[in-house]
């Protein structure tokens, strides 16, 4: 069986056709297709959740596909472990490289396949020399003997690449390698990537930055919602076309924001800066207003929210609630000022999964419930019941453990917990992640209702349709800076994506 396409001499290094993958009920990939040729740098682009990472993990042997074709250099492939994919010549460089911090750079490159000398003992001198040779070939200077701990992300990626070369990988996949790099470091990485391409290796490059895609790649494949959309030669496409292919779907009516009267400013953030995380962030949220915080994963949205709420500190800037300054690094002060925060990872940060629904909801209001310093179960239950009712938390009993409930119900418990504090500002991070469609709509209806009652809401979401459907105003974060403040009318998918993928100016 030969799959060589008529127009190319060698078979493509990587062929994925109609690959599908589900995790339980959640469909990550419907039909993903990607064909990468030797001596080519192939860009893979798509929104958050388009399925790029899942596709890569199938090639890397982390996940097994449910269906579809997977060929390497024309041969059928199916990896049950990362070791197998490595042996087949696949190397993956993740956004955050996974190195052993305590071990030397050399050991990181050769772990598990060290050069052996006499008596099967590791020949460190030979390994150091080989590592130095690899770095010289890449045109970089890294001391092979130093520990990996303390290396910049850029240098860690170079080590991953050196590892891939020493394995003689024919397929190199880089998953958003430039996200954490400075301009100079990106240039160095690109120089290395071009060198590898010229050696005849196939490179798949995942990036959200269009200027990088156009600078480095020769072909681009667009994915959306777990499906293949299109493949184009870079020379024959444009940023506008790519954005169109990426977002090409309509904002449905699933997200009903009822108009609410927008009142006075509740939250005023100005000049908020935390070094290396976000920079000079200023915005206002008014009562009755839902402000969406959009941007790519890792852009710094959650970090901004955590700083506003006082979980993390910041170096400069101020947070004011109804005109009064809120002291930094003090969630207690934020709660007293009327803030509520529903975090991204509800299981870890928003919910005590081993406690009952009552305990969870009553947790933040215990202080005000107690009479003479005493608190009874009855008092707690009376205080909690109306909230649980209102949110239609479906549990047989309020004593049920939170961990046994569905994701949607858990989210409702977390929201109930915070509504019990009667906040004036609700910060909610990824309100519907991991929640089924029906409950999703309920959460949306609830948020809209709360805004209607005059609550100010700051909503972080990676789902573009959700942001566009719910928010009165969309703030776009790109690499720690606000790059756009779009009123509802002008917040189109294209406008948001443009702002979210804007490339940072190189700090000079």
């Amino acid at each position, binding site marked *: 069986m030969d799959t060589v396409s008529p127009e190319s001499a060698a078979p493509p290094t990587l062929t994925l056709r109609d690959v599908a993958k589900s995790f339980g009920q959640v469909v990550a990939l419907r039909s993903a297709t990607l064909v990468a040729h030797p001596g080519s740098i192939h860009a893979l682009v798509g929104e958050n959740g388009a399925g790029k990472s899942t596709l890569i993990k199938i090639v890397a042997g982390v996940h097994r596909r449910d269906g579809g074709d997977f060929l390497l250099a024309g041969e059928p492939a199916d990896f049950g472990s990362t070791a197998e994919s490595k042996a087949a010549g696949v190397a993956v460089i993740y956004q955050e490289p*996974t190195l052993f911090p*305590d*071990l030397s750079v050399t050991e990181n490159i050769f772990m598990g396949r060290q050069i052996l000398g006499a008596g099967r003992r590791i020949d460190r001198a030979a390994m150091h020399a080989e590592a130095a040779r690899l770095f010289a070939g890449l*045109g970089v200077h890294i001391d*092979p*003997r130093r520990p990996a*701990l303390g290396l910049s992300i850029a240098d860690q990626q170079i080590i991953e690449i050196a590892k891939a070369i020493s394995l003689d990988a024919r397929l190199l996949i880089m998953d958003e390698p430039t996200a954490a790099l400075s301009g*100079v470091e990106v240039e160095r990485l690109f120089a290395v990537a071009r060198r590898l391409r010229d050696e005849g290796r196939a490179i798949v490059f995942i990036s959200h930055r269009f200027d990088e895609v156009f600078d480095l790649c020769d072909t681009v494949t667009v994915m959306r919602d777990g499906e293949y959309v299109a493949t184009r030669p870079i020379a024959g496409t444009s940023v506008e076309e790519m954005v169109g292919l990426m977002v090409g779907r309509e904002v449905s009516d699933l997200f009903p924001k009822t108009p609410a009267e927008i009142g006075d400013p509740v939250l005023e953030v100005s000049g908020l800066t935390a070094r290396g995380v976000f920079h000079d962030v200023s915005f206002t949220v008014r009562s009755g207003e839902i402000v969406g915080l959009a941007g790519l994963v890792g852009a710094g949205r959650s970090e901004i929210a955590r700083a506003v709420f006082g979980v993390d500190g910041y170096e400069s800037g101020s947070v004011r609630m109804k005109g009064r300054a809120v002291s930094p690094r003090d969630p207690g002060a934020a709660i007293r000022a009327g803030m509520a925060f529903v975090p991204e990872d509800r299981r870890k940060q928003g919910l005590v999964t081993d406690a009952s629904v009552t305990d969870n909801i009553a947790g933040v209001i215990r202080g005000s419930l107690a009479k003479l310093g005493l608190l009874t179960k009855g008092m707690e239950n009376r205080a909690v019941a109306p909230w649980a009712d209102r949110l239609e938390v479906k549990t047989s009993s309020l004593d049920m453990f939170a961990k046994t409930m569905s994701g949607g119900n858990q989210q409702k418990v977390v929201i109930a917990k915070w509504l019990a504090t009667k906040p004036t500002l609700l910060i909610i991070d990824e309100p519907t992640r991991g929640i089924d469609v029906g409950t999703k709509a309920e959460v949306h209806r609830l948020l809209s209702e709360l805004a209607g009652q005059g609550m100010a809401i700051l909503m972080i979401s990676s789902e573009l349709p959700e942001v566009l459907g719910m928010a009165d105003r969309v703030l776009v974060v790109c690499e720690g800076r606000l790059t756009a403040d779009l009123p509802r009318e002008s917040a189109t998918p294209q406008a948001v994506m443009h702002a979210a993928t804007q490339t940072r100016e190189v*700090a000079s």
Partner: protein
Amino acid sequence: MTPAPTQEPTVSVPDTPTETQLLVEPSSMSPRRRVLEGLLRSREFSILVVLLLVIAAATIKNPSFLLSSSGWRDLLLTPSMLILLAVGQAAVIITRNVDLSVGSVLGLTAYLTGRLFIDHPELPMVAVFVAAIVVGGLLGLINGLLVALARVPALVITLGTLYIYRGIVLSWAGSSRINASDLPSGFLSLGTAQVLTIPVLFIVAVAVLVAVGYYLYTARSGREFYAIGSDPDAAVLYGLNVRRRVVGAFVLSGALAGLAGVVFAARYGSVSSDAGTGIELQAVAAVVIGGVAIFGGSGTVWGAALGAVLLVTINRALPMLGIPDFWQQALVGALILSAIVLDRVLAARQSRRLVEARDPS
């Protein structure tokens, strides 16, 4: 080779402090000097200095601490058993696990040793050694399999087997004890025998130390112990056989505790059901003092062995220096705390450097 100042712009040279430049530039030191500096800066070296200071202080106060023949012998003989336990414990902790059951394994194999000599006097001494090591290894295998397969933290698993293994000794030995008169004299003399003034049991401990130290430093699988402890998730992504190595570490620890059980019987002559109770904490303390990171990934068995010698020697020297009981315990505690605080401070300094190097503003 000194780094050339005129490099092409594509090479990453952070324009922030010179310190970070040193981090990414190839070492310009000569190999000999680098080895020497590494040695002087190592944790092993500083423990050795502390150890020598303790010995010197005790010897000045009471010259027989070192200068008499029994003083010299005890200096090497007393820590031998703890060295064996510390070496095994270090191998386990390097993989980011811990083995709390070694005290019970030691008690079980010490009693087994006595019983074998009593019930099977025809057995050669070597067979008894092998039996204790094999039984210890099997008990370690149980620990390892539970940790690797059940995915429950080793702390909990080995806390459980600590009680289970001790329970086996208790129900087996009851109130009976092995006395020196029950043991063959050839075996007992092993406890004090010396070759060129060096106790045989110390030679055994050092031989084990060298073998394990050599393995962990020069074998592929030995290096994987460090990789697993340094980042278990990364180890999986590297395609390393994490389970097999973790089980291996526990088998090693169990087998060495088994050997330590025989050493216990030979050294003390009498074994009751509570032999070795609480010694697992001494083993962990020795490893931590010896510079093995409690979260794995770094440290050496050399350091752990030196930590064991220091711990035992301090316990013997302090009464001699006229230091009251309470302060003896407190000093050991302070030693452990300062070792851990030192590790944390060094780690925090490193990671702060990383953040500063990454942030261009």
